[in-house]
C-alpha cells in the first residue's frame, strides 16, 4: 500500500500555499469580522463575533483536507492509516493540547461561552473577548487578559452570567438595622432601581430580604441595559440606594455590633 503520493517540489509548494492561504484567511477573518461587528448594534455585534471561531474551523478543516489530498493518496485505507498514526503520536506527545483542541470543537455546538459572555472559571471573572482553537481569552474588570484552555470544559464548573444574551443580573446589597418600616424601604429601593439610568427596564426588579445575625439584608436584583455596565450599575444602585435609605432615617448597623444605635 502506497500511503504517500509522489512527493515532489510542486506538491510541497502547493501544500505550503494552501497552508499559507488558510493562515491569511484566518487572520483576515479575525481582523475584519470584529471590525464589522464594532459597527453593528448590540445583538448583531454578538452574532457577528460568534461567527469568528466557526469560520476559522471551516477554513482549517478545508485546508487540512486539501493538504492531505495533495500529500496522501486519498483512499479510505490511507486516510484511516494516517489518522491512526497521527492520533497515536499526538495522543502521547500533546495529550492536553489535543484535548483542548477537541474541547474547542465541542464549544462550537455546546456553546458554554460565546464572545461577549461574562464567565467565571476557577475564580476568574470577566468578559469573553476571543475564542481560539485551543483556548479562550477573558478580560477581567481590572483590564487583565486571562487565557483559559478549553480543556477546563471537561472538569471545571463554568459560570456564565448572561449565556449569550444581553441580560445579566446584578445585585446590590443593603444591611439595615432590624428596626425599620419594610414597606418604605422596599419602595425606596424600588424607586432607586427604577430611576437608574443603567436599568434594563423591560426586565423585572426584584427585592429580596433576609434576616441576618446583626442586620436585615436587602438585595436589589435588576438587569443593566449593557452587560459591560454591570459594575457601574451596581455602584449606582448602592450609592443612590444608600442615600434614599438615609433620607428615610433608616440606620445602618456596624458589622458585629447588633445593638448599635439605641442599644436595644
Amino acid at each position, binding site marked *: 500500500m502506497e500511503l504517500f503520493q509522489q512527493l515532489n517540489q510542486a506538491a510541497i509548494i502547493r501544500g505550503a500555499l494552501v497552508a499559507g492561504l488558510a493562515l491569511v484567511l484566518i487572520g483576515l477573518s479575525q481582523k475584519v469580522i470584529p471590525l464589522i461587528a464594532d459597527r453593528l*448594534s448590540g445583538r448583531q455585534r454578538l452574532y457577528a463575533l460568534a461567527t469568528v471561531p466557526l469560520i476559522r474551523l471551516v477554513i482549517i478543516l478545508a485546508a487540512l483536507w486539501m493538504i492531505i489530498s495533495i500529500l496522501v493518496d486519498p483512499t479510505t485505507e490511507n486516510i484511516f492509516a494516517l489518522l491512526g498514526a497521527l492520533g497515536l503520536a499526538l495522543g502521547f506527545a500533546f495529550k492536553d493540547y489535543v484535548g483542548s483542541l477537541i474541547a474547542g470543537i465541542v464549544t462550537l455546538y455546546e456553546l458554554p461561552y460565546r464572545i461577549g459572555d461574562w464567565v467565571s472559571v476557577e475564580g476568574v471573572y470577566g468578559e469573553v473577548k476571543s475564542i481560539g482553537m485551543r483556548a479562550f481569552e477573558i478580560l477581567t474588570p481590572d483590564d487583565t487578559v486571562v487565557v483559559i484552555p478549553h480543556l477546563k470544559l471537561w472538569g471545571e464548573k463554568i459560570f456564565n452570567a448572561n449565556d449569550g444574551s444581553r441580560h445579566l443580573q446584578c445585585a446590590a446589597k443593603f444591611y439595615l438595622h432590624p428596626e425599620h418600616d419594610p414597606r418604605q424601604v422596599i419602595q425606596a429601593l424600588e424607586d432607586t432601581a*427604577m430611576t437608574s439610568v443603567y436599568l*434594563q427596564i423591560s426586565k423585572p426588579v426584584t427585592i429580596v430580604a433576609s434576616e441576618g445575625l446583626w442586620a436585615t439584608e436587602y438585595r436589589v436584583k435588576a438587569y443593566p441595559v449593557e452587560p459591560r455596565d454591570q459594575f457601574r450599575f451596581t455602584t449606582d444602585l448602592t450609592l443612590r440606594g444608600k442615600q434614599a435609605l438615609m433620607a428615610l432615617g433608616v440606620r445602618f448597623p456596624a458589622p458585629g455590633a447588633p445593638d448599635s444605635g439605641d442599644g436595644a
Partner: protein
Amino acid sequence: MNRKKQNLWEYVPLADYAVPQATISRTIKSGIKDIWQRFRRPDTPRHPAHDLEYLPASDVEKVAPPSHWSGAVRALEILAKNKTGSAEAPSVMMVTGLPGSGNAQILSRLAKSLGWRLIPAPDPQQILTQDLAWLDWTKSAETPWVLCDLGKTYLRHVRGLTLVRQLLARINSKAAGPGVIGCDSWSLAYLRRVLPVPFPGAVVAQAFDDLSLGRWLSQRAHDGCGRQIHFHQADNGETVLPADADTKASAFVNHLAARSFGIPGIALEIWRRALKRKPDKTAGDQTSETEPTNGISIWVEPWEKIPWLVVPLDLGPASPVLMHSLLLHNGLPWNLAVDLLPFSATETDRTILALTDAGVLQTRHGELKISTRWYPSVKAYLNGEGYLTDQF
C-alpha cells in the same frame, strides 16, 4: 385650492397610530437607479446637480417655514371638548406627542383658544423636594385645564417620581377635574413601566403618510411664498411636489415620510436641508427661464444623497445614557443633566460638548435636546443597544 384648506391633522387612539413605510419597490428602484447612474455614460442632464447650490436660510424660511400647528389645534379643539366631560363628570384626555411633533406648543395654543387654564410645569427643585404644593391647582376643579407635558413633572431620580404619582392619583380620583394632559411618547413609555397606575385615555396625532406629508409641505411653501411652488428633483427634473396625482406621492416624499416616522417636524427639518436653487437666483423672488409659467421652481437633492446620520460611537459610556435621558425627559437643562447622570460633572460636560459638536444635541429654550434631524438615527441606535424606546 381645495388641498390647502384640507385639515391634514387627525387624532387617533395610540393603537391606531400607523408609521409610514417606504414601499419596497421604491426602495429597490431607487437603489438600482443609483447604481445605473454611476455607470451610465455621462450626458447632459436638464439640471445637473453640480450647477445648483443649497438655498440660503432666508429663502428656506419662505419656502419651508416652520409650522404654527394651526391644523392640529383645530383638530384637538373639538376632541378636547367632547372627551373631557364636565365639572360634574370630569374626564382627562391625554395627548401624546412624538419628538418633533410640536405637542407642547399645540397644547399651549389649545389652552389659549379654549380659554382653559394653562398649568405651568413644576420647577425641577419642586420635583426633587417633593413639594406637593405644586398640586394645589387641582383643588379648583371647575375650570378645565391644560398641562402641556406630563414628562416635565418627573425626574429620573429617586425622589423624582412623587409628584407625578400624586398627580395621577388625583386625576384618577377625579379630584383634578376635567382637563387635557400632554405627554411626550418617550416619557409615557417610561412612566407606564415605572408607575403601575391607570393613565388617562390617550390620543396621538396620526402620522403623516407620504400623500399627507406632500400636501403639508406644499401648503407650507404656498403659505410662505404666497403662491404655488414646484419642487423638482435636482438630478433628473422629476416633480417632487406637488404630487402629479392624489393617489401617488413622489419617491422622495415616500422615503421622507418613512424616515421621519411621519412626524411633520422631523420631515420638515430634513426637507429644509434638501432644497437647492440655481446660483444667483433667489427663491420666491425670481423665476427661472426653464420653470413653469404658473409658479416658481425649487430643486430637491435626490433622496440617495440625503445622508443617514451615524451616531458617533466613540464618545464614552456617558453618551448613550445622556441621549436616552434627554429623550425620556423631553430635554433637560444642562445643569440638571449633570445632576441626574451618575457621572462626574467633567465627564458629563465633556460628553455634552462632544455630542453638541457632532450636531446630535442642540440647546432649545434653555434645554439640551436631541437635534430634530438626528432623532431617527438616535432612536435606531438606542433601540439597537437595548434601551427603552417609545412605542411608535
